[in-house]
């Protein structure tokens, strides 16, 4: 399609396509039907596919994921919505103890093609429990795939791939980018779901991000270019698995790495990236891998979130520190 599509709309169209192509695909969650979701991501789907395909559920997250597991065992492919990041925890037990492990426990006899959609991250001035970034908590669990698109085109394709995956996929949607528009080529043939993308080529330092922070890193690269610095920007797309090969290739070129995410830095995905890249690229690195992210504190009230979230200056500062070694 030639015109630009908002990220939320791209997911909507992707779900529509999935529902059309496979009668076993279901969309489930609180308010996903008549209302079309609180972010309207599922807008119009129930109208067109009916209440048995697009299911308004009781207000019970464990129930949503638990019944989705049962439906998957019966041969369905549920795509469930958790309304907000901070609400996923009642379902965390089902996701971690059941969804993630059942394939292994059955020695491969059972497949659980369940997608758990979670609008996540801050920057929209929301109240408590509506702005969190718990991706590391899921990436730590074997059996789950954890992905996050950064733009409308990826959102469209990654959702297609997630629905087709025979593994459970935790699909983190950057809610602050829901309204950002981009061209979506629905005819394209994308690479594997977990392949990172080089957003911008550079030679002096690599910025690695995913989801909502990719756009910020592009802005950082623009600003740095004004100062005569050439930054490479990598969009990971997937937190588990992580595309270490692409990160390594970039770091071997630029010799410097800064990882940016909204989640708290402590025990976050940046820590894993730093550790592994240090192992892989020890002799290439000119500086320690640096991380920019949230603090080890509860997500703050909306009026403070700009101080909490990585912004242009904090990332530029990290770039400076790296280049100073």
């Amino acid at each position, binding site marked *: 399609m030639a015109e630009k599509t908002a990220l939320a709309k791209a997911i909507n169209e992707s779900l529509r396509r999935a529902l059309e192509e496979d009668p076993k695909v279901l969309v489930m969650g609180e308010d996903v039907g008549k209302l079309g979701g609180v972010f309207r991501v599922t807008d119009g789907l129930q109208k067109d596919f009916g209440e*048995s395909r697009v299911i308004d559920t*009781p207000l019970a997250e464990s129930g949503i994921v*638990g019944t989705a597991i*049962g439906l998957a065992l*019966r041969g369905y492919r549920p795509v469930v919505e958790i309304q907000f990041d901070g609400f996923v925890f009642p379902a965390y037990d089902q996701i971690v103890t059941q969804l993630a492990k059942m394939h292994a426990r059955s020695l491969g006899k059972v497949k659980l093609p369940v997608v758990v959609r979670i609008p996540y991250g801050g920057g929209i001035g929301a109240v408590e429990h509506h702005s969190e970034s718990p991706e590391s908590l899921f990436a730590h669990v074997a059996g789950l795939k954890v992905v996050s698109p950064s733009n409308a085109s990826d959102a469209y394709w990654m959702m297609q791939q997630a629905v087709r995956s025979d593994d459970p996929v935790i699909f983190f949607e950057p809610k602050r980018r829901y309204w950002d528009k981009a061209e979506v080529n629905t005819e394209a043939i994308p690479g594997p779901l977990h392949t990172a993308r080089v957003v911008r080529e550079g030679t002096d330092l690599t910025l690695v991000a995913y989801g909502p922070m990719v756009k910020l890193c592009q802005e950082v690269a623009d600003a740095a270019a004004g100062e005569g610095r050439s930054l490479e920007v990598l969009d990971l797309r997937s937190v588990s698995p992580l595309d270490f090969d692409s990160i390594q290739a970039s770091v071997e070129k630029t010799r410097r790495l800064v990882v940016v995410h909204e989640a708290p830095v402590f025990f976050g995905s940046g820590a894993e990236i730093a550790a592994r890249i240090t192992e892989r690229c020890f002799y290439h690195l000119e500086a320690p891998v640096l991380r920019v992210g949230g603090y080890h504190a509860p997500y703050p009230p909306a009026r403070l979130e700009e101080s909490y979230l990585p912004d242009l200056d904090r990332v530029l500062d990290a770039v400076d520190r790296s280049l100073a070694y």
Partner: protein
Amino acid sequence: MTVESTAARTPRRGAGSDAGATGTKRTTDTTGTTAKKATPAKKATPAKKATPAKKASTVKKATVAKKAPAAGRTGGAKPQSVAEPGLLQLLTPEGERVENAEFDQYVSGVTPEDFRGLYRDMVLTRRFDAEATALQRQGELGLWASLLGQEAAQIGSGRALRDDDYVFPTYREHGVAWCRGVDPTNLLGMFRGVNNGGWDPNGNNFHLYTIVIGSQALHATGYAMGVAKDGTDSAVIAYFGDGASSQGDVAEAFTFSAVYNAPVVFFCQNNQWAISEPTEKQSRVPLYQRAQGFGFPGVRVDGNDVLANLAVTRWALERARAGEGPTLIEAFTYRMGAHTTSDDPTRYRHDEERVSWEAKDPILRLRRYLESAHHTDEGFFAELETESETLGKRVREAVRAMKDPDHFAIFENVYADGHALVDEERAEFAAYQASFADADGGK
């Protein structure tokens, strides 16, 4: 480190599921005290309201067996007597057949041969269970969760199922597994520590055991929602215990199943104890009454009466097949042994309680009925004894023959589509293992 030892150290909460409660007080209560307790409770609630409430639910009618010796109705949190109204019973502990206008129709076709079959199932299941307990004591299994005392609840409900129905068990449903045709030796793999499952769930429509209490109630509900979407008349049954009834997942399963009218039967084996906690610590109302608040019938059945369990489960399955939605069955039974082999029931319950329940033994009861109704003779029992010993021997040999899995099984089936990190770590592990081989070879 052996797998067994790991398992032994993992009593898990899973351990706590089935139990239930009305503990010591119930068994010691006399008619007199019950009546006294009942009276104030009655006053507290609008008089006789309990009765109309019962009518409100379909189940109720069925449940209120006129037959049941009427002790006073207890009000809220007081322990329930086994003999209270509402306990469906078709065979007394003495082995006498009790007529029931509502439920007799569901077992009218049960032949003497069928009765012998039910007896055989219970005896062999108990024998298997005893063998597994012994194997644990001998160090062959890391842990075992015995079903001793719950044979009637499991065989009665299990034999009510059709092949195309689907079962979601907890981890003590060895009798149900038996009814599904799952080779009992397959149940032992996870207790020996050679796998975390051990059978193909779709082979016998019997899902893997679930250690996290109550989780499977939601899986059963979702599966049943799928059955309904498929437009078939299969039904789904979820087993859990009185302890699990406290879990949010069970409440959510009740909600979802009611809202979507899912063809699922919730079969709660109230064996009185959730590890050390009696049912009083799980609920202030009899568990079967919970269903009413969710909008579907709940019924309490004598869990030690195989015929009643067969009847009530058939009834509930028929409702499910007819599109009438979920049913909660509370099988009022007793865990004669420990929660698991890691448990010590002497720390929390009295011998008298167990002794009183022994008088209600499900197997003894059916044997008495078989003998008195002349359905069978000594030859049958002797033959079954031989068959039991053969089964025990087979189980023992099969367990001892179970090999530890290949080391690389750690990395198998973590993902269906593969995962780069798993591949990387498998390669690291292989190199590490190979380094030993090289070292050995060098010598």
